[in-house]
């Protein structure tokens, strides 16, 4: 298997050219040989006719009457021609050159036939055999007797074929020489043509070679490339675009992660340093440690959210579907946020008819609900309203979590699901709401075979609607308890809104 396109093209076209040239040469040779042989046969036949023309019948006797200089070849000692005539019954006449030798007697039949043979002196030759009927020479008396009837003579004339064999052999060599030369010339021309033909491929290859993973903005130009390569270039450029945007997303994501972790890290380090800068009483140390634990827990929550997102992206999140009471799950989850909502003076409108059994993964659904409640409690205006609605709609369960005080312009609804997106360029509570929640909810709802959408059309209301497949085929109630690891720390649950700007001087 030849790997180089250039070499492969070259070898294949050269082979093709050689075969075509060979076949052409062979056809030419066969044609020429045929014509040369036919001409030779013709001259042999002419010679035979000349011999036949000398045949005379005198009564019962037939003689070939010629003077030696009339048909010198049959007399010559060197490279003579031969003839032999068979006259029934049993009479044989030989040319002088034949002496007592014999030419093979061919089977009678055709009027004229040709055979290759070895002449009596060993030379390769060719023999023509013809039959003719003698003409009766009128006697001097002018009478002819009954016995003088015409007789059939079979005449073979043989001559050597040395000259045409030599000619053909010369011709063969000449032809072979020319063919070889033609193949060589063709090869040279093909090298040039193939070189030109694969140049665009080489250019593209060198363009591709110059691509670096840190600069994917380069695009291959289709410039002089042949139309056959255009789709390849288009596909490569498309791939590059995808790669570039994927890399850019990845880079932005990494930068965002780093950025989001920096502020809590700075808080940890500053707290440690300030705390250690002088001796303090025990309560100050305890306060500092509690603060650091709180910050670390926020960082942990963010890192874990990122991990879930990364696993979801990699398709590594498994589902444990079970018959779940969604209404109960909403209750359990709300209990985690009720203190915060109360502290903020939020009104709650709870429109959940219980129980609603669906077949889903309660752990994943709980994460979604936690995020939605967390957002609603955090972003509702002071003394605003929260509304939680759940209802079965034929084969779907609709859960709506809504809050008043939405500051998000309608156009931003799509961006909400982008990672690290925030309504305000940087809202309060860095580290708590780092813009991952909705992105996570979207991934998890897809995993649960549902979807999530945001409605900002209604003035002042921010509504998130989660749609899940329902109902369950098996409506047996089943207890569900929240794994301890998923319950947010008490301090976070109890956390109140950040204080208003500190006292003015």
């Amino acid at each position, binding site marked *: 298997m030849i790997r180089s396109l250039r070499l492969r093209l070259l070898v294949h076209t050269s082979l093709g050219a050689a075969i075509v040239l060979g076949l052409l040469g062979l056809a030419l040779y066969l044609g020429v040989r045929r014509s040369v042989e036919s001409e030779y046969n013709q001259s042999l036949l002419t010679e035979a006719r000349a011999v036949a023309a000398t045949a005379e019948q005198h009564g019962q006797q037939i003689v070939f009457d010629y003077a030696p200089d009339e048909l010198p070849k049959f007399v010559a000692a060197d490279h003579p021609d031969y003839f032999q005539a068979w006259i029934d019954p049993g009479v044989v006449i030989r040319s002088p050159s034949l002496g007592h030798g014999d030419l093979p007697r061919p089977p009678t039949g055709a009027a004229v036939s040709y055979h290759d043979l070895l002449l009596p002196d060993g030379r390769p030759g060719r023999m023509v055999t013809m039959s003719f009927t003698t003409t009766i020479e009128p006697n001097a008396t002018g009478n002819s007797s009954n016995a003088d009837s015409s007789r059939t003579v079979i005449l073979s004339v043989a001559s050597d074929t040395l000259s045409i064999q030599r000619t053909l052999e010369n011709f063969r060599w000449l032809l072979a020489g020319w063919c070889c030369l033609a193949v060589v010339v063709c090869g040279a021309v093909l090298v040039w043509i193939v070189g030109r033909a694969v140049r665009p491929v080489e250019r593209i290859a060198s363009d591709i070679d110059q691509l670096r993973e840190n600069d994917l903005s380069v695009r291959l130009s289709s410039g002089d490339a042949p139309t056959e390569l255009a789709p390849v270039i288009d596909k490569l450029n498309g791939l590059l675009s995808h790669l570039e945007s994927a890399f850019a997303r990845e880079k932005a994501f990494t930068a965002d992660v*780093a*950025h*989001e972790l*920096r*502020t*809590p*890290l*700075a*808080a*940890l*380090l*500053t*707290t440690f*340093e*300030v*705390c250690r*800068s*002088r001796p303090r009483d025990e309560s100050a140390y305890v306060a500092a440690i509690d*603060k*650091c634990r*709180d*910050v670390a827990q926020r960082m942990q929550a963010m890192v874990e959210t990122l991990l879930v997102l990364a696993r979801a992206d990699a398709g590594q999140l498994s589902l444990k579907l079970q018959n779940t009471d969604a209404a109960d799950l909403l209750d359990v989850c709300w209990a985690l946020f009720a203190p915060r909502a109360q502290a903020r003076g939020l009104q709650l409108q709870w429109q959940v008819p219980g129980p609603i059994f669906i077949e889903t993964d309660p752990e994943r659904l709980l994460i979604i609900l936690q995020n939605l409640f967390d957002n609603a409690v955090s972003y509702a205006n002071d003394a605003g309203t929260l509304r939680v609605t759940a209802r079965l709609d034929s084969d779907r369960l609709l859960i709506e979590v809504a809050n008043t005080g939405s500051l998000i312009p309608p156009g931003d609804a799509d961006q909400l699901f982008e990672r690290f997106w925030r309504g*305000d*360029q*940087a*809202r*309060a*509570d*860095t*580290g708590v709401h780092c813009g991952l929640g909705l992105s996570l909810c979207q991934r998890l709802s897809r995993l649960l075979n549902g979807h999530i959408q945001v409605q900002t059309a209604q003035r002042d209301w921010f509504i998130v609607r989660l749609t899940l497949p329902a109902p369950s085929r098996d409506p047996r109630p089943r207890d569900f308890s929240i794994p301890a690891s998923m319950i947010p720390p008490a301090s976070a649950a109890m956390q109140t809104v*950040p*204080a208003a*700007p*500190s*006292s*003015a*001087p």
Partner: protein
Amino acid sequence: MRLLVVEDFQPLRESLVQGLREAGFAVDEATDGQTALWHARNGEHDVIILDIMLPKVDGLSVLRQLRERKCPSMVLFLTAKDTPQDRIDGLELGADDYLVKPFVFAELLARVRAMIRRKYETQATVLRIADLEVDTTHRVVRRAGKPVDLSGREYALLEYLAHNIGRIVSRADIWQHVYDFNASPESNVVDVYIGLLRKKIERPDSPRLIHTRRGQGYLLAELEPA
């Protein structure tokens, strides 16, 4: 010296304020850009420590507005944005310094002190007048080579006067640059602290350094005996 810390992440803001107060600065705090602009409206802060990603008005806009208002405060960006372009943008906009989170608190302190020296055009970290030495790095005061034990407020007042050697500073100036606690500027807090400071650094056998200029304010200077 009076500082304004603008940071939306509460735990970091709390620690910064605590650390800076313990280092002898009067510190105001703000959680968003709007509040920061309100605090900084009179330009009384010597240094503003400003985050970039802030609710309501971001840090860059805050700085732009401050510079438009010709606010004399020095501004240090303390942010997680770390690309060279971020730093360039911040400094080109008129920030005096740029520090990326996470940072070493001692470095932040050193940078703040350096900015204050630049603001008051003093290059030395030890300010001297007659036989009085104010070491701004170690916050130590010596009179005739002997350490003087000052409270934080007293030290802050002396340092402010020392940065303004030979210049008369009004009570309002002192109030604005030295104190962040809640009391009316009309009260005689400044006079009380000046009195306390005089008692500690002035000796009967040495020349008077803190002078009162009736109706104008106070002056730290070595004057020829009248």
